[in-house]
């Protein structure tokens, strides 16, 4: 074995990737060749230096946060598919047919030809559930476009896509883990949507700045099994929608309004 042949095998020798026969041949050459031996020694030193230069260690909370995401995804899917109002549609129709039919149902059920903001938001909420979680497809109707439980990730992502910087809070400890966010169009404007979980339920929290939107009178009741709660605080207006109680949505909103009681609509 000459130097060229030996040097071509120094990396796999270092990495224990050579057969016994080849390893023996290279080592025999190294014993007889100071130049190649020096080269191999330098490679080992680099390897030792790298091994001692470990930089990252996973945070203790990583495992639990990954499991939590999986739980929410798994339970969220079950929750969606078990929704009694439209589960039969999921199983027997294409999602497009289901979505179209449901939207017509929503529009006819509500107040005539002019679609109030709250109705439109409810439609968006339902659409988002149908389309499941699909990150990295920003132009597709989805539940989550930026998937993260972290304020510092979701907030800047949203701020780059709407013309304001929405408040974002992770409320895991309060029982509302943040799943992520997305952007929706409402009255030709981009508005921010924060997606939270509550047990096995998905909550869409729509956030916009107070300006041209007037609060529609939604006559004080839940619609078709969904609760919609709205409130205003500071520069912002919030709408929270989910198939949970108005009281629980109120609690969620209270974390944004500093305890100001929201109005069940």
């Amino acid at each position, binding site marked *: 074995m000459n130097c060229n042949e030996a040097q071509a095998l120094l*990396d*796999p020798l270092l*990495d224990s*990737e050579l057969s016994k026969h080849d390893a023996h041949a290279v080592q025999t050459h190294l014993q007889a060749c100071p130049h190649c031996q*020096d*080269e191999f020694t*330098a*490679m080992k*030193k*680099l*390897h*030792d*230096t*790298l*091994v*001692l*230069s*470990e*930089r*990252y*260690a*996973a*945070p203790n909370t*990583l*495992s639990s*946060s*990954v*499991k939590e*995401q*999986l739980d929410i*995804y*798994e339970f969220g899917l079950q929750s969606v598919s078990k929704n009694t109002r439209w589960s039969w549609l999921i199983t027997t129709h294409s999602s497009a047919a289901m979505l179209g039919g449901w939207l017509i149902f929503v529009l006819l059920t509500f107040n005539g030809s002019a679609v109030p903001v709250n109705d439109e938001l409810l439609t968006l909420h339902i659409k988002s559930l149908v389309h499941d*979680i699909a*990150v*990295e497809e920003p132009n597709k109707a989805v539940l989550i476009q930026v*998937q*993260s*439980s*972290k304020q*510092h*990730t979701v*907030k*800047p992502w949203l*701020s*780059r896509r709407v013309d304001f910087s929405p408040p974002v809070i992770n409320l895991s400890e309060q029982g509302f883990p943040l799943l992520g966010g997305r952007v929706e169009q409402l009255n030709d404007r981009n508005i921010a949507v924060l997606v939270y979980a509550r047990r096995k339920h998905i909550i869409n929290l729509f956030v916009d700045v107070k300006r041209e939107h007037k609060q529609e009178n939604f006559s004080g009741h839940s619609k078709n099994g969904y609760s919609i709660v709205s409130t205003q605080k500071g520069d912002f207006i919030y709408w929270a929608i989910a198939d949970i109680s108005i009281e629980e949505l109120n609690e969620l909103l209270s974390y944004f309004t500093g305890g100001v009681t929201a109005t069940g609509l």
Partner: protein
Amino acid sequence: MKKWSRLEFDRVMLPHLDRAYKLASWLLRHQHDAEDAVQQSYLKAFRGFDQYSDGDSGAWILKIVRNTCINRLNQRRRSANIISLNMVNDVNHDSDRHESAITPQALQKSPEQSVLDQQTKKAVWECIDALAFEFREVIILREFLGLNYEEIAKTTDIPIGTVMSRLSRARKQLRQHLASFDKEYKHHEL
């Protein structure tokens, strides 16, 4: 196609979490992003778990993590002109091939010492960061995650021969980078 349960997914894939996080951190050089990328990757993996064929689970999940990181790096490049205020202080977050800022003082201590001081470590990290992506990833997978050539090939979708040649070139470049910042390294021909 085999049907997998959540319990099986946890049993097979969660043991790789630490390596997944290390890979994401090294590639993204931003620990919060890395955590998000790992979460996103595990979700993707769970959704596509039916396609997993009971083979090399480590390479399978690491490949997903790698692809997620590449997507994030591409997104970063596209939005490079928009830097959010709360990321400004994070090291190297917006640069895939940033210029090394190693000072000669960084490598004062001999590499033979068993415990490297923080400055030396930082110099090594910056040398690794200065590598092109294709060289950086094989070094990370081999030296920090301990993958063998076959596992690296599966994770990165390249032939084993290419793994070997990239590793070799990456190591040569690292030695050159390190030597250029410290005469002691040159003296030892490291």
